[in-house]
Structures are given as structure tokens and as C-alpha cells.
């Protein structure tokens, strides 16, 4: 089986063959059935575009999804695909990866699928560091069931199920992922195609549990949910593009930044009140502790520019490698198991 190369590993001759694949090789023969104008089209296209870059044969790639509009994505990928049941995609991915560490496993989910019905499985697949890439389409609404409030809907949101406004406070997906010990946490936007491609590619190359939130527009039931900061005219001023090792600067004129005062981040303007670049937080994806990433995960429009990019990226042993390691150790210690011995274990006696 082909090993998945990480960024700095030279490609094997076999992978060089595979890398000749193009986006078209990853397009299945199924007709795409999302609503016209849905943000999912772009996520699908960027996913198909980055696939050849991994150098993994398409038969070694599996897309597993739950229920919701996002759940249809595997049908459109010309790889192996499994459209499972509501909220449970991470569980199937965990079992598949345990049985078949050689496969590259993607989990496609939505805000309801991942954070409501499947919340428990997101927590546990991340804390185990299962080597999978979870892409959560966040449109702050239940689309497939025609417009009810979701776990990321804002407080007071009026929907079909909350005509007087939602009384439930939304949760912050990336804070949850960080709290669950995800080793790769990132955010991107459906319409920011290059940034999305870059984010998906980096997530796919990470060994371990990756959690990617994609801010996605449901143009039928929650149109413009993210427009206030993602539209071309505002995005430079209202979003913060995270870059590892660089100070947190944003704004059309690159004149604004994020400074830390005590435990609180604040927006400052360079050159005003003597603020210089040296005062700004320098992003560190690989910080051993999660505090910086947690602070970033709490920053959101309108109080703050919305951070996008990689919040956290650390290396830890993966679930499947630890499982295999135990089997190796046990086999070295006791020898390869012999069924005949297992049957005869304990006290036996013979009847003539």
C-alpha cells in the first residue's frame, strides 16, 4: 500500500505516477444535486482540485459523511465513499482507519451533524487523534430539513423552529475542537477558493485528527450568514489571515493588528499611540500549549476580525499507530498468537 507522503518526504516513483492525476479524475459520474448557488459547490470543487496534490492513488482515498446537505459530497468524488447516518461519520472513520491505516480518510460533516447529533463523536475522534481530516461545513442552519436553528445559529435567530428567536447560545466550533485535543485546527471560507484549497491541502497532509471549519453559505435558508465579513468589499478589514511566524496584521492598508493585553486580545492601529509591529502577537501554529489558539478561536466579527487559516498544528502519535504499536509489542513479548494454544488455555483434563 502507498504511504501518504507528508510535505517534506520525497515522492516515490509510484506517487509520481499518481500525481499526474487532475481534478477531473476525482469527479464522479453522479449529477450534483445541491441548490444552485449553494456554497457546497465551491467546497466540492476545491476538494477535487487539491486531491491530485497528495499523490495518493484515488483507490486509497475514502470520503465518509453523515447526514445533511454536506453528506452528499462523497457521491460526487470518484474515490471510495460512504454516506452514513446522522452524526456518526467519525465513528465509521475511526473503525476504518484502525482496520486500514494505509487509507487516507476524510470526514465530511455540517454544523448540525458534527456539533449537535454527532458532538460526542467529534470530541472522541479528536482526543484519540484518529488520522482523519474532518471538514465541517458551517452554514449556521439546518438546510436539508428546510431551515431550523443549528448549534452555531446566533442567539435570537428566527427560524421555522424558533419563530420568536432561538434561546440557545451558539457554540464556537474551533474552541470545541481545541478543547477536544484536535492536533490540526483551521478555518476557511467557501468562496475564498485559494485560501480554501491551501487549507484543505495542509489539513490533508497532517498526520492525526484535523478539524477544518468552512464558513459556507446556504443561499436558500440562511443567505448571507457570513457576508458581513467575507464579502470582497469587507474581507480585508474584517478578517485576519493567520500566517505561521508572522505578526497578526490585517486591513486593506495592512495597518491594523492584534495585540494581547493581559489575557485579552485587542485591535490596534499601527503607528497610533506608538504601536509598532513588535507589539503584535506573532502567530505560532505549533505552540505546544493551546492558549493562543484558544484565544483566536474566541475572536469573531463584529468585536474582532474573523481569523482564518491554521490555528493549531502539532504532532502527536495517531490512534491507529498506537494500536498497531501495542499489537507489535504484544507479539514481540508473547510471540504471534496460536489459536490452538488459546483453545487449551487454563486447566484441561482428558476423558478417555
Amino acid at each position: 500500500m502507498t504511504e501518504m507522503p507528508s510535505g517534506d518526504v520525497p515522492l516515490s516513483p509510484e506517487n509520481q505516477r499518481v500525481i499526474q492525476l487532475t481534478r477531473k479524475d476525482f469527479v464522479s459520474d453522479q449529477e450534483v444535486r445541491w441548490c444552485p448557488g449553494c456554497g457546497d459547490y465551491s467546497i466540492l470543487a476545491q476538494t477535487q482540485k487539491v486531491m491530485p496534490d497528495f499523490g495518493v492513488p484515488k483507490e486509497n482515498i475514502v470520503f465518509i459523511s453523515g447526514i445533511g446537505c454536506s453528506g452528499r459530497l462523497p457521491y460526487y468524488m470518484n474515490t471510495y465513499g460512504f454516506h452514513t447516518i446522522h452524526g456518526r461519520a467519525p465513528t465509521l472513520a475511526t473503525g476504518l482507519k484502525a482496520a486500514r491505516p494505509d487509507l487516507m480518510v476524510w470526514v465530511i460533516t455540517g454544523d448540525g451533524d458534527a456539533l449537535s447529533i454527532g458532538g460526542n463523536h467529534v470530541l472522541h475522534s479528536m482526543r484519540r487523534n484518529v488520522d482523519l481530516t474532518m471538514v465541517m461545513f458551517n452554514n449556521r442552519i439546518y438546510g436539508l430539513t428546510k431551515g431550523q436553528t443549528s448549534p452555531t445559529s446566533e442567539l435570537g435567530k428566527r427560524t421555522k423552529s424558533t419563530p420568536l428567536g432561538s434561546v440557545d447560545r451558539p457554540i464556537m466550533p474551533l474552541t470545541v475542537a481545541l478543547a477536544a485535543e484536535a492536533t490540526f485546527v483551521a478555518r476557511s471560507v467557501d468562496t475564498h477558493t485559494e485560501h480554501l484549497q491551501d487549507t484543505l491541502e495542509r489539513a490533508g497532509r497532517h498526520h492525526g485528527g484535523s478539524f477544518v471549519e468552512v464558513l459556507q453559505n446556504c443561499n436558500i435558508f440562511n443567505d448571507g450568514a457570513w457576508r458581513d465579513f467575507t464579502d470582497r468589499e469587507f474581507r480585508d478589514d474584517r478578517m485576519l489571515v493567520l500566517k505561521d511566524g508572522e505578526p497578526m496584521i490585517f486591513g486593506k492598508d495592512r495597518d491594523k493588528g492584534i495585540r494581547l493585553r493581559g489575557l485579552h486580545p485587542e485591535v490596534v492601529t499601527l503607528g497610533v499611540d506608538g504601536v509598532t509591529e513588535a507589539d503584535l502577537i506573532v502567530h505560532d501554529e505549533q505552540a505546544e500549549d493551546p492558549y493562543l489558539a484558544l484565544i483566536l478561536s474566541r475572536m469573531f466579527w463584529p468585536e474582532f476580525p474573523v481569523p482564518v487559516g491554521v490555528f493549531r498544528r502539532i504532532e502527536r502519535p495517531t490512534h491507529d499507530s498506537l494500536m498497531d504499536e501495542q499489537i507489535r509489542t504484544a507479539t514481540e513479548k508473547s510471540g504471534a498468537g496460536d489459536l490452538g494454544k488459546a483453545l487449551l488455555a487454563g486447566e484441561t483434563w482428558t476423558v478417555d
Partner: protein
Amino acid sequence: MQLTGSQFTRTAAVFGNDISTLPDFPAEIRAPAGSLPGVSGFQLSFSSTDIHTPGDAPDVLVAMNPAALKTNVGELPAGGALIVNSDAFTQQNLNKAAYASNPLTDGSLKQYTVFEVPISTLNERSLEGLDMTSKQKDLTKNFFALGLMFWLYERSMDPTLTWIQQKFSARPVIAEANQRALRAGYAFGETTEMFHTTYRVPKATLAAGTYRNITGNEATALGFLAASKLAKRTLFYGSYPITPASDILHQLSAYKHYGVKTFQAEDEIAAIGAAIGASYGGALGMTASSGPGIALKAEAMGLAVMVELPLVVVDVQRAGPSTGMPTKNEQADLLQVLFGRNSDSPLPVVAPATPGECFAFAIEAWRLALKYMTPVVYLSDAFLATGAEPWKIPSLADLPDITVANASKGDGPFRPYERDPETLARPWAVPGTAGLEHRIGGLEKADITGNVSYDPDNHHRMQLLRHAKVEGIARDIPPLEVFGPAQGDLLLLGWGSTYGALRSAAERLQAQGKSVAHAQLRYLNPFPANIEDVLRSYRHVLVPEVNLGQLSMLLRAKFLIDIKGYNKVRGKPFRIGEIVDEAALILSDRERPR
């Protein structure tokens, strides 16, 4: 107490007796000693002949305190031997057991042969000089009682002495104390003139072979290990802890050097989800639980039916509904596993009848799952899971070959739902196989291509195909075997762990010259092909079940035969006597008193 029981079991089994056990313990891990809910018991029957149950009523009851006496004395027949730890009959313990007066002195036990032994005092005396607290010393008194039993039944102490040495090798004082306690109990039996008889139970005549003592859970775990070796695939066992299924997880977790992958999931749903994921990847993915957990797994079992992947789901049944009585026995999940999912969602169900049989049926469940590409339910229960019997160890050469091949690239486009014409199984196309990239899922599939389909005629056809695939398994399983006359007055028909009581009842009735047969169903879906013929060969059919009439309802609905149920749900297995009485009532053609 469970330890004492299992030590006696080992000793009797190694001696060559046939054995059957019924551990009976509370769900509370350390319920207050001396209280009624805290009573832990172990019923053991051993015999020189082939026996099938732990026995209806004991010949000897050992009660370590008033609460134990109160909970169990009802099981002892008049004239039975009652050995009590008289030291424990203090006013405080009598109060805990809600005795108004001391049963040892108020004459209420006069129908029994009572032996009052100051076990605590004698035991403590035997431990004099050991560096232990008196509480620690008191904990060894069960071994004193065991020693006394070994003398009474002329058993060797050696296996237990060795076992104690190994078990407490790191704590020599505790080992010494337990060994002394055991010897003191034995010596007490030998020197006192209290007991006038000892019981001598010679070896049983079992079929030739090598034997070991095995519980149902042990046999189940071994069977799954064997299945993975026979199928030449990795065993992936996803499970969430639940009584009485957890021991299977514990045992399989110790088989890492066999390549077994065990996974303690975050919940019951994740356990089955991961199992399905593993099966999708080409492994033997399986999960186990008890009734409450099976309820949680229902949606995922439906997914496995839809995507037609091999999967084995173990249900070690316990008394319900809801949390019920977790450590007590019941066989009331039959209709749940057959019908507890949305829509028509057929899957095969198998049910071993004895602890030893669990091994063969674990393999059989996998044979069916692999050959027919289907989830299979394996029904065990608390009695089978924790009960023990001597098990004749099979030779590896006698085990079946259950290998199946993965799908490989053929000519033309891959069709994930093109079926084998004989079994109706679809191909197992495992990720990593070039050219077979395809998508499956819970949405209805178009016949042959496996694409998503909402076509009305296609859905009807697919429902029929899924049904026919499972029904067709009837051609591939053994016919229902009958013990006794092929035709007659009465058939005793059971399933699962009622086997022993029913077989023994049939033997007793046959010995009385009655025309009675017994059959035990091991396949509950589909039924063996000959079942209707069997049912119609007897004037009466009695179906005793530890539920309120689930199999009898199925059989009545399916065959329109006036089957009678005998249903008791006391958290315990049937007694032979009650089956015999019920059968006699039916044979007398009188109405049962209601």
C-alpha cells in the same frame, strides 16, 4: 463468594464431573455485607451423569450470614442440609436481614438438617500469629467454608491451594492465610463428628476428548478469535462497557498478539459505527452489548442492512425493560433484534443454547455474515454468559473454512449491488482496490448499480431482495433436531439458555413413559426449513421462554398453530420441575389454572 464458587467448579470439573453453574450476584459492586441486597450466591450442580442445568434445588446450602439465609433458604428442599456460620447470627445482622427472631433458635428451620458452625471464630483461630488485621482475617472465611465443602464432597484441595499460591504470589501473608483457612475448614470436617455422611460423586461419563471448563462469554470470545483466524481477516471489536457483555471485551483485549484490534468506544453507537467502518475496510468488524445498548445501536444496524456489509452484533441479554436488573437473566430481546429498527430490516439471528456452544455459534455467525454480506445478531444471555460447563475442545482441523474473497476488478464498470445468484450477496469491494471506487450509504440503492434511487419499483424490488437474501439462509443451516419421538403428544420447544431445563424435563417425562420430545432452536431468523413439519408432528407444542411469549407469538403468527407459552421472568433460569409440571398439565388436557 463468586471466587469460592468458581474454585469448587474448577475442582469438580478437573475431577471429571459434569458441571453446570449459576452465579447469582447483585449489580452493586460492594453492597453492604450482611444486607439483603448484598447477598451474593453461587449455585453449582455436579454430577456423574450428563447434566444440563445448575439444578432446581440444592442438597446443601451454605449461608454465611442471616441475609444469605433469608434470601436462599426458600430454594432448599425439606430435609436438605443447611450449614450456617453461627458467628454471623448476631442481633445486628439479624436486624439487617429483618429477622424478628433468631431462626437458629426459634424453630423455623426445623424442616432442614442444620449444621451450626462458628466459622468466623474457627477461621480466625487458624490464622493466629499472622500479621493481618482482624478485618483481613475475616475476609478469608469463605475459604474455610470451601475447605469444609471439599471434605464433605471428598474433593482434593490441591488445585485451589495452587491457585491461591499463584493468585497471591505478591502477597505471601494473604496466600498463607487463605491456604490455612482452606485447610482448617477441611480439617474441621474431618475431625468434628457433626457430619455423619459425606457425599461421593464419581466421575461422569463424558465423550472422549480434552476438556476445559468454560463460561459462555469465554467461549464467545474464543469463537470470535477463531473466526478471524478461519476467515484470515483482522478481528475488530468495538464495544462500550455493559453488564453482562464486558467480559468479552476484556478477553479479546488480551489477544493483541493474535492481531485482534479492540476499541472501547465513547458510546454504544460509536462502537457499532466503528465496527461497520472496519468491515467496510475488509476486517471482521463486530460489536457487543446488552439490551439497552442494542436499542442505541438500532439505527446503525439498519445502516448495515442497507449497505449489506458483514457485521456481527452480540446481545448478551439481561432482565429489562430499561436498566432492569443488569446482572439477572432474561431472554426478552428476541423481538427487539428482529424488529427493533425502522422499516422492514431483515437480518439473521442465531442463539447458542449452552456455554460451550457459544464457541461454535460465534464462528457460525461470522460464516453467515461473510457468505451473505449481512449483519448477524448473536443472542446470548446472562445465564449463558456467566454459567460454566465442561467443554470438549475442538480440534483445529474440524473447524470450518469461512474465507470469502474480496471483489476484484473485472470487465466493464463496477456494479456494487450486482448479487451472487445463489446467495444474493453483493460483492465486498474493499477500499484500496483500484478500479472499484464506488459510493455506498444509507439512502436506497438502485438494484445492481448501487446508485441512489427513489424509484418506487426499485424500492419494492430491493426490499424483496433484502428479505429473500435472509430467508434463503434457511437452505444453508441444519434442520431442527428433535430429541425424543418424531411424532407424539407434546413438543417442548425452546431457544437459547433454556436448553438445559427443557432437555432435563423431557428426559424425566420420557422416563415416565410420556410421549414428549424436545427441540431447541439455534436459528431464530430464518427458522430451519423443517420447523413447520416438526411443529405439526405433535398434538401440543409448549414454548417455555424467559419472556412474556416472544417466540411463541412469532410461531403462532407465522404458522397459525395454537402454540402454548410458558412464561416466567424472575431473573433466573427455569427449574426443571416447573417445566415438567406444566407439561404434565398440558398432557392431562386440562385447562391451566389462571
